[in-house]
């Protein structure tokens, strides 16, 4: 299904659509408020952008430096070319520990690899521990937003779900009550897991450490109680120096949710005594994206989600309309690089208003890349339905005579035609749009009659 077909499913519930739109806009406004308190905000964005540009030029060198230092610290580093290899590595570690149940904190990358179904197929129970992710896991859904995984759900739905899964009181929709039920349920999982999986926000080449940020503390509850910590990261998450963290830690949470920092920002440098840390470096199409000159700097993304919160299309169409691990504007420039056919409608799910680029903390030119993808996709599939009408229009606009004749014709015909033809489903421009009132005469005729 195309983006617009999926979006039409989401907007069937008009009240929820409006709530979704307003809630994400509220998060965007919180981001605006807090960034205005930092006089050097634009300088921070520029610096972050330059650091990432530099890293993309020297990615191989920084990865090797990181690996060398991480090894020295006692972290075991693994490399995976694709999702299958990544999942196999994770499973091998879990099986070598004779472990049947693991806890996992938020990681977009393991969603990208479809790790959960793979582990479950191999007899490992996976418990997502971020509250929003646990909610969508209970529903067998992927997250609909990379920072706010259950933003598409209302508390009534979560209350019903928890009544079924966690035996909470029927009809109790109090968020505190529901969160406490999840706390008790997940505590037991934390206390019993031997292996914990996390994502990675940043990895530092200079020190061989990596940073994981959460507000709930679920990543730390998992890894510090387990014997083995498996951290999964995309190769683009590397930054050169510890001091660079100062820049990124200042922009990440402010851009994401309008808070000055996440309540927990954990720096893992070496395992606690008697424990293990494994880190998997995943390519999965990133090296290919790096070779696409127009799209390579999409790899600068730090996954804050600001472009989603601001996007008028995302806010009104919901995360699932994108059918992509990373939805929204940034997803629409990352995903076509992995599967152009599947994601061919995503770059068109934009007004090209540029708001995404304006809020991006690492200054990715998202809307320009959306436009570039449109050019590539149109070249690759010349038979899109609008092409015929575009060619026709181009012929008419090229010839003044044809323009005049068709104008006169349309002014008469549009008035005469019934709505069933004017708004026929084949006219995709007529969906949810009314044609304007047709003027009696053209500007040319009016000018001739009144001014000449």
């Amino acid at each position, binding site marked *: 299904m195309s983006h617009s077909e999926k979006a039409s499913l989401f907007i069937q519930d008009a009240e929820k659509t409006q709530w979704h739109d307003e809630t994400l806009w509220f998060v965007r406004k919180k981001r605006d408020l807090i960034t205005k308190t930092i006089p050097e905000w634009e300088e921070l964005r520029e610096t972050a952008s330059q650091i990432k540009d530099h890293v993309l030029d020297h990615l191989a060198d920084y990865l090797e430096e990181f690996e060398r230092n991480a090894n020295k610290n006692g972290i075991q580093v693994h490399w995976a070319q694709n999702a299958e290899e990544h999942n196999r590595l994770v499973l091998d570690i879990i099986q070598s520990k004779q472990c049947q149940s693991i806890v996992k904190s938020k990681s977009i990358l393991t969603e990208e690899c479809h790790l959960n179904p793979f582990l479950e197929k191999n007899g490992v129970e996976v418990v997502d521990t971020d509250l929003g992710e646990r909610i969508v896991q209970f529903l067998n859904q992927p997250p609909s937003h990379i920072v706010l995984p259950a933003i598409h759900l209302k508390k009534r739905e979560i209350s019903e779900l928890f009544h079924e899964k966690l035996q909470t009181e029927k009809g109790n929709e109090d968020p505190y009550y529901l969160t406490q039920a999840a706390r008790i349920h997940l505590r037991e999982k934390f206390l019993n897991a031997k292996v914990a999986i996390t994502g990675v926000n940043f990895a530092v080449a200079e020190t061989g450490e990596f940073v994981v940020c959460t507000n*709930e503390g679920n990543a730390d509850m998992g890894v510090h109680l387990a014997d083995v910590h498996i951290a999964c990261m995309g190769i683009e998450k590397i930054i050169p120096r510890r001091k660079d963290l100062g820049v990124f830690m200042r922009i990440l949470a402010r851009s994401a949710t309008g808070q000055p920092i996440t309540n927990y920002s954990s720096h893992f*440098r070496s395992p606690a005594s008697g424990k293990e840390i494994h880190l998997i470096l995943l390519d999965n199409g990133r090296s290919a994206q790096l070779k696409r000159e127009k799209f390579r700097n999409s790899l600068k993304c730090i996954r804050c989600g600001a472009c989603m919160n601001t996007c008028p299309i995302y806010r009104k169409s919901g995360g699932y309309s994108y059918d992509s691990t990373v939805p929204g504007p940034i997803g629409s420039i990352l995903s076509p690089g992995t599967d152009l056919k599947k994601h061919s409608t995503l770059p068109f799910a934009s007004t090209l208003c540029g708001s995404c680029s304006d809020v991006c903390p690492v200054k990715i030119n998202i809307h320009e890349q959306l436009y570039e993808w449109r050019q590539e996709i149109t070249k690759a599939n010349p038979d899109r339905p609008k092409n015929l009408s575009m060619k026709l229009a181009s012929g008419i606009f090229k010839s003044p005579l044809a323009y005049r004749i068709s104008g006169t014709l349309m002014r008469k015909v549009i008035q005469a035609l019934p709505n069933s033809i004017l708004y026929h489903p084949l006219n995709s421009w007529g969906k949810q749009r009314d044609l304007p009132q047709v003027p009696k005469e053209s500007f040319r005729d009016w000018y001739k009659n009144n001014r000449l």
Partner: protein
Amino acid sequence: MNSRSIILEKLRTGNPVADKPLPEWNLISSAKNLVSGFKKAIEANKGEVFELSEFENWLKSQEFEQVLSISKHFNYPNSIQIPTDAHELAELNLAIIDGQFGTAENGAIWLDDKNLNLRALPFITEHLVIILSKKQLVATMHDAYKRIQDSNSGFGLFLAGPSKTADIEQSLVIGAHGAKSLRVVWCED
């Protein structure tokens, strides 16, 4: 070739180059009053800041079953012993630990292995108290990372508030998986 060499090879061949140098910056901190800035930040993160005497009064009014204090600046005579396995802290009601320094712009307090003893401690405890000196404050995260540039603890943490979530309809709830409250207590030195 193994995956490592294949990935590195791909990254080294045929890439367009932006040719941007690694930037150096000198971002000047804007915070003036570090103590009031830090307090405001902690409160915005849903923590609280106490003077020592206020904290002592509060503690007397509480009836915690299990309290673990490993603070060098605050003596709690009935502290339980530090276990060897963090799982034994599952019923811990209150942990009292020392923070190394705080960051005024966001309330982030740096803790590492020598403050924590067991890495799970500030997460698994029901309530958390961090003892911090007013003299140990920096303005921004740039200053914070400058300060820990040479520290090489196996684990380090910027902790800025209690565990929180807003995953149910964006309603803020304090006390998700980690500590349900954070109290920062000023100490003398």
